[in-house]
């Protein structure tokens, strides 16, 4: 700690910080551009100048850039000094020389850091009277709009893109006052983190193209704290709504999970919420039972829209007349919705809706998180790890934000080296210079080459069983009691020894595995490594990647597999089914789903998407998406987090009958029981979830109860400058209705309510503080800039390692043996297109890679396939024809099937391959 004197007041600060970091953390305002809490200082923009004095008696002082000035004990500085103030105003004036002053038509306007800093410095009139330099812009793809004339050359974009996120296709070009930030030629930005440019850029050079399609100023958006539903990482988001549509998704700062950054799937994948074809009223489908074979259409006849009561009555009638009703839940639905379904159908009739093999892995992952001795780390904890082994996960595809955290962990070797040489870790360019190519050890074992390979000390590209065998060998190297794989080759043994050595040498080793390959062996191998580490090392962590937003939660909630449900229905052992937010066709072959749904007498589907399953429903109930509902998800870290309703859909579209699934299910239950529907609130359901499942007992603490108030006020969803409220429904009704009431959360659908930062709170709908309209306003909510929210970061962790000495798994796979006429079809996770709901968003579709099989060169030779040639994969009844990619690293004897291919493949399966298209 150090004491600094700022404008006559004394403060205690961390002596390892720079002055800017320290002052901002104290809540003092110093304008800045090039500095970023996640990226450190570079001293480029000169905006954060303050006066520093030698001692109490020095009246002269000198200007220093506070971002580059280390905190010194007993330092005297002045932010208010006239010379410093004048210099800061001049810096803005220089930055404005070539800036187009196009705020009224600029999409950054209203949440622009440059606007904020300009106002803060007081520069309000220009003296420059000459021509401005102009640039041409580039088409950077479906996510990012580019307007280089607004650039103030702070270099943040390239520092984020290259240094933080490892992207190679955005750079700084030119020199002097003609610096250009862009690609060497037009084209889609390749980094899956490109969306962060929109928040990293302090002005309107890089803006959200998807927002542009239906632009609304920040102050006119309605926000709620939400959690990304597009994978299992659990990043916190701040979706903004206007006129019943989500207009953009901004990062919501979480000190332990996503910090300042999201992946592009999470940021740009919201379009499914706004789809025109979404079910918005209940539907009833008349059908004639066709007892034809598999594949025949189950529903014939028309669709009729229903009012709520009618829909509930018909659904209740159908379910009451069934002999046995089962429920099929969903890993993309909240704990509350799944729980209410389970309550409706009874514990013994509840299926998770997850493929049996995936469910087995999910259950096993929950066990490993508690019974292998190592904790499940947050992303912040991952960033602090100093040796990483990844088994079977292509993280950039399966948990992209985690890949970004792993990158920081590996690059943090530079921080360690800098500390040895007395270079402060915030001195970003100096650390980079010193580090050069130095990394903490990273070892990757995946079937295909991944985007992290360039950072890895060693990689192994192999079939799932061989990846598992490497893992088992590592465990054996760490602890001789762990079983060794038989007949392992010397090269792999050497690799395993090196990995074991690196993990043991580390202070905080990390093992990452997961369910992407559908391989229990890979998971068990990771478990053995974790156990061995728990026995040998002081600290360590095990992170297990799940696929969907609530995969972890649903596994903890428990239930049967999807196959179990489909079998019951197909065999006639159950004749009524309620499907919750789950397109069964994405998880099981049509040949299995069709007979099950046909044979059922009553199919009720709740969803917010018009899926193939929805089209088979007798009664379809329009469910709320994450944007219109509240609930709790459990992330892959084991963190239960609450997401809050962003807007009430019926306010702008009075004809909609969208309800939260848990609310539908409560009403349906009452209807089935011929009871009047008693109003139910989220808090009640969450309490019930907590009371029913001991492992979920803390979920009540995951969010704020509806009774929470600040100074007696609800929390505002809308900024206090929200405009047009009285006019926005004028085309529907001349009188303005009362704003929707929210019985479920402490948030109001209104600008009225608390929206400040001075009262610490965990759940922040939108970051705003006086003078701070941009995302930089998060500074004001943190205990120190870049740290934790002052009230603590949201969520509650459910999975902690139980004490105990856990024995090793001893059932080890043999080496992968290619077969003569068959190939092992291995699932490949895909960031864009590999997730059901975001794949329905147009910008994501535009960003999807071509759907192709991946093969080894030897397989291609054998099948006489040239690159891009078509190939058919035959899995029993299922056939899929796609072009091929021939990969030098892909393991022989296997074929990669990308997750967007539409062929449900939860685990590796032996398939036949034929060149060309093969008709069924």
């Amino acid at each position, binding site marked *: 700690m150090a004491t600094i004197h700022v404008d006559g007041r004394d403060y205690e600060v961390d002596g390892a910080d720079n002055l800017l970091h320290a002052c901002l953390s104290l809540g003092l305002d110093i304008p800045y551009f090039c500095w970023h809490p996640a990226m450190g200082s570079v001293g480029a923009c000169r905006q954060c100048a303050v006066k520093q004095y030698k001692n109490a008696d020095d009246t002269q002082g000198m200007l220093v850039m506070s971002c580059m000035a280390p905190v010194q004990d007993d330092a005297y500085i002045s932010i208010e000094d006239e010379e410093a103030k004048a210099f800061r105003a001049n810096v803005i004036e220089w930055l404005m020389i070539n800036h187009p002053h196009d705020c009224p038509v600029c999409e950054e306007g209203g949440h622009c850091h440059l606007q904020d800093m300009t106002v803060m410095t007081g520069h309000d009139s220009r003296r420059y009277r000459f021509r401005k330099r102009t640039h041409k812009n580039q088409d950077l793809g479906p996510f990012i709009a580019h307007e280089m004339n607004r650039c103030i050359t702070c270099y943040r974009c390239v520092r984020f893109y290259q240094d933080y996120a490892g992207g190679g296709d955005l750079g700084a070009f030119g020199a002097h006052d003609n610096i250009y930030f862009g690609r060497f030629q037009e084209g889609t930005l390749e980094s899956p983190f490109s969306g962060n440019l929109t928040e990293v850029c302090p002005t309107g050079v890089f803006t959200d193209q998807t927002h542009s399609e239906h632009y609304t100023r920040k102050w006119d958006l309605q926000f709620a704290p939400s959690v990304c539903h597009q994978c299992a990482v659990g990043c916190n988001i701040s979706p903004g709504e206007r006129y019943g549509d989500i207009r953009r998704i901004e990062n919501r700062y979480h000190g332990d999970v996503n910090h300042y950054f999201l992946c592009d799937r999470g940021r740009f994948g919201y379009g499914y919420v706004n789809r025109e074809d979404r079910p918005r009223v209940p539907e009833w489908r008349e059908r004639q039972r066709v007892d034809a074979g598999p594949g025949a259409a189950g529903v014939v006849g028309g669709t009729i829209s229903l009012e709520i009561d009618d829909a509930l009555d018909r659904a209740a009638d159908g379910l009451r007349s069934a002999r046995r009703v089962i429920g099929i839940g969903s890993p993309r639905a909240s704990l509350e919705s799944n729980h209410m379904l389970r309550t409706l159908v009874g514990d013994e009739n509840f299926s998770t809706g997850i493929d049996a093999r995936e469910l087995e892995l999910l259950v096993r992952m929950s066990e490993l998180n508690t019974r292998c001795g190592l904790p499940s780390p947050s992303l912040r904890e991952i960033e602090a790890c100093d040796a990483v082994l990844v088994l079977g996960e292509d993280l950039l595809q399966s948990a992209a934000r985690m890949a970004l955290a792993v990158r920081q962990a590996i690059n943090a070797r530079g921080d360690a080296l800098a500390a040895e040489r007395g270079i402060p870790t915030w001195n970003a360019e100096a650390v980079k*210079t010193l580090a050069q190519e130095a990394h903490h050890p990273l070892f990757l074992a995946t079937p295909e080459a991944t985007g992290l390979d360039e950072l890895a000390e060693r990689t192994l590209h192999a079939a799932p069983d061989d990846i598992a065998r490497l893992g088992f060998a590592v465990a054996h190297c760490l602890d001789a009691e762990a079983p060794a794989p038989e007949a392992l080759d010397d090269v792999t043994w050497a690799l395993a020894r090196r990995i074991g050595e690196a993990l043991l040498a580390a202070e905080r080793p990390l093992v990452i595995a997961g369910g992407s390959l559908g391989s229990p062996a890979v998971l068990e191998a990771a478990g053995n490594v974790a156990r061995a580490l728990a026995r040998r090392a002081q600290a360590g962590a095990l992170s297990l990647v799940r696929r969907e937003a609530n995969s972890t939660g649903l596994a903890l909630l428990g239930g049967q597999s999807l196959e179990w449900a489909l079998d019951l229905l197909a065999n006639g052992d159950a004749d009524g089914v309620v499907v919750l937010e789950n397109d069964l066709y994405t998880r099981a072959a049509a040949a299995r789903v069709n007979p099950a749904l046909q044979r059922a007498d009553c199919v009720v589907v709740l969803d917010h998407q018009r899926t193939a399953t929805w089209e088979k429903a007798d009664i379809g109930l329009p469910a709320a998406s994450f944007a219109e509902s509240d609930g709790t998800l459990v992330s892959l870290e084991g963190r239960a987090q609450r997401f809050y309703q962003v807007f009430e859909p019926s306010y702008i579209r009075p004809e909609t009958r969208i309800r939260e699934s848990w609310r539908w299910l409560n009403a349906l239950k009452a209807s089935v029981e011929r009871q009047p529907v008693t109003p139910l609130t989220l808090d009640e359901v969450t309490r019930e979830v907590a009371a029913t499942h001991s492992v979920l007992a803390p979920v009540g603490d995951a969010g704020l109860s509806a009774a929470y108030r600040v100074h007696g006020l609800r929390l505002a969803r809308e900024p206090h400058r929200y405009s047009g409220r009285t006019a926005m429904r004028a085309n529907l009704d001349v009188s303005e209705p009362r704003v929707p009431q929210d019985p479920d959360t402490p948030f109001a659908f209104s600008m009225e309510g608390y929206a400040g930062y001075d009262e610490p709170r965990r759940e922040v709908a939108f970051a705003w503080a006086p003078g701070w309209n941009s995302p930089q306003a998060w500074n004001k909510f943190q205990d120190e800039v870049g740290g934790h929210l002052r009230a603590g970061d949201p969520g509650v962790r459910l999975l902690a390692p139980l004490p105990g000495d856990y024995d090793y798994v001893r059932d080890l796979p043999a080496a992968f043996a290619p077969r003569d006429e068959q190939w092992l079809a291995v699932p490949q996770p895909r960031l864009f297109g590999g997730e059901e709901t975001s794949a329905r968003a147009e910008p994501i579709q535009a960003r999807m890679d071509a759907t192709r099989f991946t093969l080894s060169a030897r397989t291609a030779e054998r099948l006489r396939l040239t690159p891009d040639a078509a190939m058919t994969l035959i899995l029993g009844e299922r056939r899929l024809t796609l072009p091929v990619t021939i990969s030098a690293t892909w393991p022989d004897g296997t074929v990669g099937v990308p997750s967007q291919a539409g062929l449900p493949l939860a685990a590796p399966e032996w398939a036949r391959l034929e060149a060309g298209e093969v008709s069924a």
Partner: protein
Amino acid sequence: MSRILQDRDERRPETHPLTFRLNDDGTPVMLEAYREQQGYASVERAFRDLTSKTLIEELKTANLRGRGGGGFSAGLKWSLTMQGEGIPRGYIVCNADEMEPGTFKDRLLLEQQPHLLIEGMILAGFANNAYQGYIFMRGEYVDAARTVQRALDEARAAGWLGRDVAGSGWDFDIALHTGAGRYICGEETALINSLEGKRANPRAKPPFPGQSGAWGKPTVVNNVETLCNVPSIVLHGADWYQGLSQGKSGDGGTKLYGVSGKVKRPGLWELPMGTPATELMERAGGMREGHTLKTWLPGGGSTGFLLPEHLELALDFDTIGNAGSRLGTGLIAVVADDQSVVSLTRNLEEFFARESCGWCTPCRDGLPWSVKLLQALEAGEGERGDIDLLESLAVDLGPGRTFCAHAPGAAMPLASAIHYFREEFERGVTRGQGVAHADPIPVGSV
């Protein structure tokens, strides 16, 4: 070709350590001739009698100050290079990116006496525990590059470079790297970035290159002339070196001085450090017929203008510094009475604005603004307030406010030109009455 304008008779080994070997016809002194004239004797002495520590002490005592223009003690710089347990061996980088306007002294040494530089670099490598040297040479110095490369080949063949230098058991080699034409590469850390293949942006200091330089390893960057001074110091000692300045300056040694502009005999001379500018003007034969001296730059475009009355001053770092300018490279550029200071300043600022790397705001955006204001004044389209604005820019482009020394260098001629020749600038102000934005703008009024 650069020429030394002193006869062989004047250039004695005991008084002209930098130039005594040079041929009168300007042909390069290659290895054989160089060896015959004490060449590489200092390396032999260092291996025999000195350690890294004692060599650096000798250099410190000699008070050799950096000849690239900074004037920082070379011995002190070397003593700050990290060495020892756990510290990797680093680099010696010779800054031969001579692009300072009006400067052509390093070129002489590179073109005509490359082995002196190599010898100096070997000593630097020995003292700083480096294993590799780089000569970062201005791309346009094509002849120099050819000569230096020949010399490197000769030195390597003769065992002065490579493995086991001169039987010492110590390895050191030197590679030649030619630049792609950016003035900022003369800034030592920008030079290092460029050498690494990165954008030629300067680096923040600290850490200094001696702590973390090229590729993150301890690195010493010295100017050509600085390195060329080292062999004679090692060979003859610090006291001898101190004596070379003949009491004209507190700084030791000799200096390659030069004069350019409208003088009768522009050129280069090796003279005692602290020689007054009048003597240089005499050696240059005075102003050409019909011209009188209006003003002069003491050491390149990035130094401040001085007046004829300042010619009496000793040309050393402290004296010129105290007069409000900088010694810089010590090659003075004279400005004749018929030359416009406004145009000259505009020309210089255009150069500096173009050569800004674009990293920090004042330099990147402030310098081009100054150019546009100067262009307006030059064209007689200046507005009231323009000169005040230029003066305020010159302050904001000063030391500490910008990321590196580039903009402060650019600010020196600008500030001094206005200081001494304000009326010339005022002649360019033709507008202003009633021009709304010519009034000073109040700031900080929120």
